[in-house]
């Protein structure tokens, strides 16, 4: 019967269905993982009731094992290439293929409904197979993927009868100018979200209008550059219920009929909370947007190269409820000052460089950041490309905003010191990690010594992801981080003087992390081989583009790119020739 105090209830008296119902309320992946570790019966119940699975590294497990582990899988998130692939540090054929997953799930009885992919290679064939294998498929989200064409999209449109969401974010899509949009059958009325902003080709406008007209649940619509202004206006009339709008080409003549109609149309779109697009923009037309600005919580103008600082600030002044702002650095420090005074609810700010390779021309400096930190106390997420940064500014920012969860600073000129004191930026970043106890993600830049890593190891106890470039003096730097950051999951390092001693000091650490990337560091082949030998649960991959074979290299030679990750399934079988699996 009962052991222990009267307050203890033995949950094993509950039938499985009750437990399952209780587990339904537990949605976070981490919590569900914990639940499955409690006892065998909980493991079993959780296993069969689990619907959503997140795989941060598609090579950490195989499709077959995933299916066996969670037969009730309905929603899968997969990430493929390492993060630095975004910056061309990973060759194209490295891996991250979707097809094997679709094939395996298609053969099994998995009733897949949602698929979210990041940095994966997605072929038309896999999209077609996907569209035919899962009759209840509802949602496809592709972020930074490549390998497919509009033909693949046509298959999705044609075959997924209950499709609710097709969201393409920043993918490299080969545009065959087919009429993929027209492939949505007339019977398809379930669309809630349609984002094709990253497509470069022409769109069948008539099909688009018809599609939007017959989608009464459409909440999110992001158009590509090929959709002209007057079509946008007509779409708004059809879909005044939109919550998220991405404009296509936003160019018109303010005196034209179309413009007047647009102004009228947008007045009735009072549900819009999120606005993006403006790849092509006529500044004089921006005032038409002002009426909806006061409700906006997310504004993404990071592709609006045609807007100057004064136009941006005029617009932003109306956005009093803004929580997330993505903008180009042409807004300037003064413009950021306007943001600071207008957007008191701001939580996330991303300032992208309009001229990434011209460090001298970057229009924002430390001043803009300080202004925003002073004016926006709720700021918790930052991505900031700037021309320069000072320790004093960072210390001030740290004082003003203690809530940072993500802090990513990119000073365009690598290894640039504090221009005022000529010192490294160790103290500035140190202040950030000391003050922001909840910091989960950090990207460093500027001139940095081992000292900054000392601070990170000492204070950044919740840190999960760290990106380092051109920093540090010695192995000590890396060791501070590996030893101090207990929650570290992803570490990516490029062009730092960290070598074998740091790599090999605590090999078990890597099993607690998702992955480690080191490129152009001081790590030798021999050390990598040793690590591979001692840690069978890690895959150590050497990416070698020099057309040398393994036998040519001796162990003392430095490795150019190394990527290691924990895995349960050993070496992957789809690695190209230039990837050596040790």
């Amino acid at each position: 019967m009962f052991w222990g105090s009267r307050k203890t209830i033995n949950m094993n008296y509950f039938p499985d269905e009750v437990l399952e119902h209780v587990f339904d309320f537990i949605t976070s992946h981490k919590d569900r993982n914990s639940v499955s570790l409690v006892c065998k019966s909980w493991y079993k119940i959780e296993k069969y009731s689990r619907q959503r699975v997140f795989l941060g590294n598609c090579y950490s497990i195989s499709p077959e094992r995933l299916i066996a582990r969670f037969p009730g899988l309905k929603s899968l998130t997969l990430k493929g290439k390492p993060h630095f692939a975004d910056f061309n540090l990973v060759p194209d054929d490295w891996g991250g293929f979707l097809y094997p997953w679709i094939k395996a799930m298609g053969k099994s009885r998995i009733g897949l409904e949602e698929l979210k992919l990041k940095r994966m290679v997605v072929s038309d064939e896999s999209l077609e197979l996907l569209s035919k294998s899962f009759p209840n498929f509802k949602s496809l989200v592709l972020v930074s993927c490549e390998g497919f064409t509009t033909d693949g999209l046509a298959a999705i449109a044609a075959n997924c009868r209950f499709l609710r969401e097709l969201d393409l974010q920043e993918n490299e899509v080969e545009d065959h100018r087919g009429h993929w949009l027209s492939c949505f059958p007339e019977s398809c009325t379930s669309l809630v979200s349609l984002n094709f902003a990253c497509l470069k080709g022409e769109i069948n406008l008539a099909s688009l209008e018809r599609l939007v007209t017959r989608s009464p649940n459409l909440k999110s619509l992001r158009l590509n550059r090929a959709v002209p202004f007057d079509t946008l206006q007509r779409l708004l009339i059809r879909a005044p219920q939109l919550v998220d709008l991405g404009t296509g080409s936003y160019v018109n003549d303010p005196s034209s009929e179309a413009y007047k109609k647009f102004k009228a149309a947008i007045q009735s779109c009072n549900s819009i909370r999120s606005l993006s697009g403006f790849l092509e923009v006529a500044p004089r037309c921006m005032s038409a947007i002002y009426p909806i600005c006061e409700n906006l919580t997310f504004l993404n103008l990071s592709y609006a190269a045609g807007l100057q600082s004064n136009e941006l600030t005029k617009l932003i002044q109306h956005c009093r409820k803004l929580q997330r702002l993505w903008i180009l650095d042409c807004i300037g420090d003064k413009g950021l000052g306007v943001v600071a005074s207008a957007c008191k609810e701001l939580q996330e700010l991303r300032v992208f460089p309009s001229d990434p390779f011209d460090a001298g021309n970057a229009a924002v400096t430390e001043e803009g950041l300080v202004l925003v930190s002073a004016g926006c106390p709720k700021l918790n997420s930052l991505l900031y490309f700037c021309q320069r940064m000072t320790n004093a500014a960072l210390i001030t920012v740290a004082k003003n905003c203690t809530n940072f969860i993500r802090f990513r600073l990119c000073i365009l000129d690598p290894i640039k010191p504090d221009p005022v004191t000529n010192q490294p930026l160790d103290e500035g970043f140190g202040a950030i990690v000391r003050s922001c106890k909840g910091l989960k993600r950090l990207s460093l830049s500027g001139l940095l010594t081992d000292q900054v890593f000392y601070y990170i190891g000492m204070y950044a106890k919740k840190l999960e992801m760290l990106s380092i470039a051109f920093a540090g003096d010695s192995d000590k730097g890396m060791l501070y981080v590996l030893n101090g950051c207990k929650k570290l999951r992803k570490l990516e390092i490029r062009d730092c003087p960290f070598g074998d001693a740091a790599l090999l000091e605590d090999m078990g650490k890597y099993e607690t992390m998702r992955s480690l990337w080191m490129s152009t560091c001081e790590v030798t082949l021999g050390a990598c081989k040793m690590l591979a030998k001692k840690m069978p649960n890690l895959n150590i991959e050497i990416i070698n583009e020099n057309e040398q074979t393994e036998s040519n290299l001796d162990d003392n030679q430095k490795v150019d790119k190394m990527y290691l990750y924990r895995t349960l399934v050993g070496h992957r079988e789809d690695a190209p020739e230039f990837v050596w699996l040790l």
Partner: protein
Amino acid sequence: MSSPLLGVEEEVQSNVSSPSVDCGLGLKERNYLGLSDCSSVDSSGVSSLPDNNKNNLNLKATELRLGLPGSQSPKRETELCLLNLGKLDEKPLLPLLPSKDGICSSSQKNVVTGNKRGFSDTMDGFSEVKGYVYTQKSWMLREAGSDSESPQSVGHGKYPGNSGVNVILSVRSLGAQASVKKEEPANVLQKQPRATNGTNLKQTDIANNKSGAPASRAQVVGWPPVRSFRAKTLASSSKNNDEVDGEPGPAALFVKVSMDGAPYLRKVDLSTYSTYRELSSALEKMFSCFTLGQCGSHGAAGKEILSQSKLKDLLHVSEYVLTYKDKDGDWMLVGDVTWE
């Protein structure tokens, strides 16, 4: 890829490789017409003179480019250069003196490996080429001292021939000899005061110039960490915005300037300058903040319309030469024709 995997491989090959190589950059392996161009210039130069004079105002087809004098090109390059450039002295000359002798200085050690060959061919010669590091993808961070290693470490799997394009500069300058034509740089309509980076990191070339340029010019792959999709999109959207805004100012003469080795191009309003020297120093300033060294980005911004001209500038006047492409597609040394 040698490991077969459930037909994935084929997809990858067909679907992945081409998009990525194409990447909207229109990169192809090209034989940089440098030589052939020049020869056509030579032969046709004189005969086309009279026509050109008449067509003075038809500037659409001219392009400006700046020749990059290489310092340590392999022997064959030197020969090539000498061959083509005729009388060139070694000493770097201020290329922008409004002189009419069309002397193209510095050209000898031009970076021209890719003259007649696609990029992949040139890669073989790399080990000899100390100064030049080409990657298809992007910049490479190398301090001066390590240049000799760079070719090796740079290597990426594929080498689109983009590099060839940029390289030909000096040979282009050969056009200077036939530069008696009174061509003026073409005008480009737009108002946009500056071009956003046109680069697709994937296609930039890197010419590591060792000619005594401040060795600290580093070239960095994958820096700054901007997603290549974003970089490409911004580049092409800035171009489009130019066309969109319309109404250029009364005398706005916008000209695209590409610097050899630069990941993206700039635009200059020629009407704001009154002498070559002004233009030259403005360009110098514009590209001097270019700590990331020279990267050929010719292909990056996509194919330009004939009506646009390109100017290639260099970080240091003494090492770079301003050249332009006229309406016949010949590379001309800037400075021969009067400013007006």
